[in-house]
């Protein structure tokens, strides 16, 4: 009996340690309140954390990473890189003669792909949406040029959208186009020129004071700033070597009331479209534009406050679709109903 008691006494500290770990873990999990969970998805064509590859996306890996000099990596269903398609190619011997034939190199089937290239902002993140979902992201070079290849496509019509975020996390307008992709072919979409980003330092400006209009575009490009008034007013300025531009606009030229401004850029022979409009009020006081603190108010249609407009927001709006007394955050035009107009506004502000 004493021996059993002694065994229990020996095991008791271990039991306490176990209880501690379990309690701590439960507490830690309860303490985490996540609206949107960061996940790693195998099979979405994007090699994320914990994955060596995802379909055609191998990140920085290639056959040379494993000591081969030819062939192609294969991505298995667990998103691990398979080197069975890699091989070492022996260079032909210049001095020797003869030599028999060989097995030949493995035949690599043609990939169906689309290559996107164009201009965004220096070192900015460029996202490519495929039918409304982020398919691939890349970083533009110091000269704002980007070039990215999207593979694993089927034959059919795709709706692609491109947007970028500048150094202040301001997003460009979506640049959208449709492409019919043929199996086994590579389609190049060149000459994409994203409109400049734009922001103002004040949401309301006293009539006669200056409002700073700023953003980012291609380095050394000419930026056209349009301010709407009874007659549209244009200003032309040059972006600096980082693509940044800044213009102090004298509001003495504007009547009191709501106004908006937008910008476009010209670089060499290329011209972008106008980007998003930013609204400001000309009145009797100066009110600074609130910094983007990640709250919902700064991004239209971001209903779950994750700084994105995507399938989560679509699901929220779809829940309230044609229901009575909808949540105000889903009623984007404040008409006390969620209908097609709210979805249209959401589609305009979509980020994927």
């Amino acid at each position, binding site marked *: 009996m004493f021996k059993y008691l002694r065994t229990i006494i020996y095991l008791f500290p271990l039991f306490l340690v176990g209880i501690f770990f379990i309690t701590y873990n439960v507490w830690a999990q309860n303490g985490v309140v996540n609206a949107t969970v960061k*996940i790693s998805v195998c099979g979405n064509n*994007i090699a994320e954390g914990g994955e060596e590859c995802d379909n055609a996306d191998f990140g920085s890996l290639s056959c040379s990473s494993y000591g081969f000099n030819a062939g192609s990596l294969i991505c298995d269903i667990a998103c691990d890189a398979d080197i069975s398609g890699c091989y070492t190619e022996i260079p032909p011997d210049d001095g020797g003669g003869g030599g028999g034939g060989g097995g030949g190199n493995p035949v690599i089937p043609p990939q169906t792909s689309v290559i996107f290239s164009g201009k965004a902002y220096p070192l900015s993140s460029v996202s490519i949406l495929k039918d409304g*979902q982020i398919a691939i992201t890349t970083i533009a070079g110091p000269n704002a040029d980007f070039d990215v290849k999207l593979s694993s496509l089927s034959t059919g019509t795709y709706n692609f959208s491109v947007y970028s975020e500048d150094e202040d996390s301001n997003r460009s307008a979506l640049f959208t186009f449709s492409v019919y992709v043929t199996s086994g072919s590579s389609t190049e979409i060149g000459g994409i020129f994203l409109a400049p980003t734009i922001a103002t330092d004040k949401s309301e400006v006293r009539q006669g004071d200056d409002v700073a209009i700023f953003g980012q575009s291609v380095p050394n490009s000419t930026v056209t700033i349009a301010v709407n008034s009874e007659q549209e007013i244009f200003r032309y300025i040059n972006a600096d070597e980082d693509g940044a531009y800044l213009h102090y606009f004298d509001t003495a030229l504007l009547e009191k009331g709501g106004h908006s401004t937008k910008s476009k850029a010209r670089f060499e022979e290329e011209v972008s479209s106008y980007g998003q409009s930013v609204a400001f009020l000309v009145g009797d006081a100066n009110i600074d534009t609130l910094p983007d603190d990640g709250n919902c108010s700064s991004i239209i249609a971001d209903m779950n406050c994750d700084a994105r407009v995507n399938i989560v927001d679509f699901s929220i709006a779809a829940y309230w679709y044609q229901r009575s007394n909808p949540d105000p955050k889903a009623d984007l035009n404040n008409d006390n109903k969620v209908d097609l107009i709210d979805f249209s506004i959401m589609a305009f502000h979509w980020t994927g």
Partner: protein
Amino acid sequence: MNRLLITICLSFLLLANASQAADLYFDKDNAEIRTGRFFETGIIIDSGEQSINAVEGKIYFPNNLLEFVNTKENNSIISFWIEKPKLIGNYIKFSGIVPGGYIGQANLFELIFKTKQSGQGNIHAQDLKILLNDGLGTEASINQRAINFNISHDVLASEEAVVIIDLSDQDKPEPFTPMIAKIPEIGGENYLLMFNTQDKGSGIDYYQVKEGYGAFVKVESPYVLKSQKLDKKIIIKAVDKSGNERLVTISPVNPKSWYENFSFFAIIIIVIIVAFSLGRTSWTKTKRKQK
């Protein structure tokens, strides 16, 4: 490699204005059909030079002459269906959006009917709305054309089966990135799984989800996850109408710690029991020998 170079001229986006009406029409003009035959028609939308991003409406047909068979949404410009085309009485209702907008002519979806009896009729759209991609949801003006048809009696036997399963489609549905989030009004405090993809060949048929060692279950987005600890691997299967499957896997967000793993404790307990039994046997034998 067949290489096609497309240089995008951004200026065409500038042409997005409401000066021109959008067109909605069917890809067949007046059709002559026979009884007992299958009849397929596509619905085409042409935005003109303006960018559109949302559409809804109803497609009416005479159900005394036509029997609705199916819809095909492959190659549709609609990326997200608010209401997937669905038969309600004698019309098919639909609504959906194109994130980022669309300029030009494109397929909305296709309808498959079977003719019932001879007669004349038409298929037409009603309650149609096409909205501009202007951030305000401005309604575009619409020109629409109905399709008139004449069904004549066929002396031959009627077609018994229609090839709804397109065996020529060998491609999987498109890769997609699901999302996990809490949406209080839909799932309360529960995590929801949201997903959506397209299939260019035959269209998406259904989705299935498997959590951990559980079986695949047919679901729709958003789906309330059974495992709210997010400690299990989640596999989402998108199946197209030709039976091709696309699997995407979500790694456990909160993998189980070693002390939460039941099998770990089971092994320890078994080892302890075995050790205890052996020890006791050995102790009993020793005691017997001492006696």
